[in-house]
């Protein structure tokens, strides 16, 4: 036993030492946590920014938007990130004023599994009907009327929704609540809701997987997931009565026409304008207006300015919608007001 003790002790020492010896020289680390949706682009930004300013490392972990909000309130991180704006109630819990910095936007797309993957169109009625469980078959007249050319089978519709709390669900239910009084009254808007029908999949991956695996399934996922998984996604009728294909352009168009208040806590679902895709939403970084640590605060502001200019230009390649130019200007001005 004692021999084993010595042995395991030596083993542990070795492990810990090997971890420590490989570390680089001391650097400032700025920690952030929150939304999963922007994780790819944020990690890209932070890797690129390490080349711009090697004296600072940004470490971002995707623990969920709710987690991001909680951590920034608890001050366990230097910045938070969220797919939905913080509520007044939560802002009041924070020890200081929290600024919302919109960074990029994304869209929820309607994806489905039908033989031949026909291109489909949906409007508000069809989508709410399906997700309320009132439209049960693919050849329902409400769907058929919108898709004259497509061959719709006499097949049960299997609804797949997110089971985990998510910004994706928030955008989806926010849209449905805006276009349907019945949805608003029966279900409402939240990161998770009491679904009237359907199966729950965990994460965008889970929903994409279930839709792919289940004939007759319909679900909503982030645009990037539909593109990367090569899944079909539908055009959706916007508030101007036009059918719009979800794309980086139609999301930015929606952001350009959306009403954006001074604190940048805005919803851009069902935005006006001919080119606006109606089921879209922005994602935010959350930072304290009054920074506790002057050195970190300075680096954070420098980074934010870089992200809102150089960083925004990288968004499109990763299928994220960048902010429209005038919104960028407004946000940059606000970043300048961060106090050290």
């Amino acid at each position, binding site marked *: 036993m004692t021999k084993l003790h010595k042995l395991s002790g030596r083993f542990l020492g070795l492990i810990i030492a090997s971890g420590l010896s490989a570390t680089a020289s001391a650097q400032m680390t700025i920690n952030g946590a929150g939304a999963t949706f922007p994780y790819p682009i944020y990690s890209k930004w932070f890797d690129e920014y390490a080349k711009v300013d090697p004296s600072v490392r940004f470490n971002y972990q995707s623990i969920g938007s709710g987690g991001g909000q*909680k951590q920034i309130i608890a001050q366990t991180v230097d910045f938070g990130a969220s797919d939905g704006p913080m509520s007044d109630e939560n802002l009041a819990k924070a020890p200081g004023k929290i600024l919302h910095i919109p960074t990029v936007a994304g869209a929820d797309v309607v994806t489905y599994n039908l033989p031949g993957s026909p291109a489909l169109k949906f409007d508000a009625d069809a989508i709410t009907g399906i997700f309320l469980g009132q439209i049960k078959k693919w050849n329902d007249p409400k769907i058929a009327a919108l898709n004259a050319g497509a061959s719709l089978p006499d097949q049960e519709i299997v609804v797949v929704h997110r*089971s985990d709390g998510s910004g994706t669900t928030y955008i989806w239910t926010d849209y449905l609540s805006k276009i349907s009084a019945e949805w608003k009254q029966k279900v409402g808007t*939240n*990161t998770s809701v009491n*679904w009237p029908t*359907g*199966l729950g999949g965990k994460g965008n991956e889970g929903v994409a*997987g*279930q839709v792919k695996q*289940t004939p007759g399934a319909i679900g909503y996922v982030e645009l990037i997931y539909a593109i990367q998984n090569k899944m079909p996604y539908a055009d959706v009728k916007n508030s101007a009565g036009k059918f719009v294909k979800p794309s980086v352009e139609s999301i930015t168009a929606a952001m350009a026409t959306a009403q954006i208040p001074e604190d940048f806590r805005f919803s851009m679902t069902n935005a006006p304008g001919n080119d606006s895709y109606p089921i879209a939403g922005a994602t935010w970084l959350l930072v304290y207006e009054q920074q506790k640590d002057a050195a970190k605060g300075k680096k954070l502001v420098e980074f934010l300015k870089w992200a809102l200019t150089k960083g925004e230009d990288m968004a499109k390649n990763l299928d994220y919608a960048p902010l429209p130019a005038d919104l960028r200007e407004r946000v940059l001005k606000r970043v300048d007001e961060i106090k050290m």
Partner: protein
Amino acid sequence: MPIAVAPERPAVRSTIDRMAPPSGLGDKVFKWFTLAMALAVVALVFLVGWQLARGSSLAIHRFGFHFLATSTWDPVAEQFGALPFIYGTAVSSLIALIIAVPLSIATAVYLTELAPLWIRQPIVSLIEMLAAIPSVILGLWGIFVMIPWLRDHPFPFLKKIFGWTPFFSGPIYGVSMLAGGIIIAVMILPIITSVSREILRSVPNLQREAAYALGATRWEVTRIAVLSYAKKGLFGAVILGLGRALGETMAVTMVIGNTPQIRASLFAPGYTLASVIANEFTEATTDVYLQALFEIGLVLFGITILANLLAQLLLKTMGSTIKSGAVQ
């Protein structure tokens, strides 16, 4: 000592106690040290219980016992009831045990008593290695490989044969309570197998030799000398598996369908307590909502206690019907 296996153990213990009453300083220090370590589990239970209770006090106050008896889970209206999750946890764990226990104990028997020597160690290492697969990976495998296969082959077959019972009726989506139970079974197979094997291996060879000397066949030796000797230890292994089954989260969430409903059909989607915590904890932002999730944690804690109590009770009745000497 309920899980003690040798029938004569209590007597032996008292013999040992008589032979060497803890006397010297070293003995005292060692005994108190091990006691302190053992008491750590009590401290941990209080820690967990206290954190959960503190986190859910508001919800407990607001929903009372209705929380356990209602089925609505509506974060928007802030109405929360845990019944479908309780049901889902119980059923999925039960399915998992029904599948995993016979398989793993038989495997353990094979590995200790029957398999050729050279093959034993590789299989054991393999099984232990697979215990390390992150459950999110297992879950993704479940969705992309296991579910389509289950949906196309075993499920329709089950429906054809047992479709007349309520348990195997209704539409087949693939994701379902049964799929959840199966993935939990996969997850608890390694732990039950490894612990059972360790138990069987520790059965003194004298037991086997005695039985062989009486002319018993290999199986009779296993059954009479080994299995009955190690029965209580094996039960301990099953309990460890049950504990893991109840708390299993990520992989189950991927395949169970996450629908808070109570259906007799095992083909229908379900939901478990651990899954709803994993699904919604990171995104819940309002106080009542978070508190309700903490209360779910508390309920799961309660269920675990109940399940273990039940298991102990079973063990007691089982022990009394077999006259292996009242170990309790």
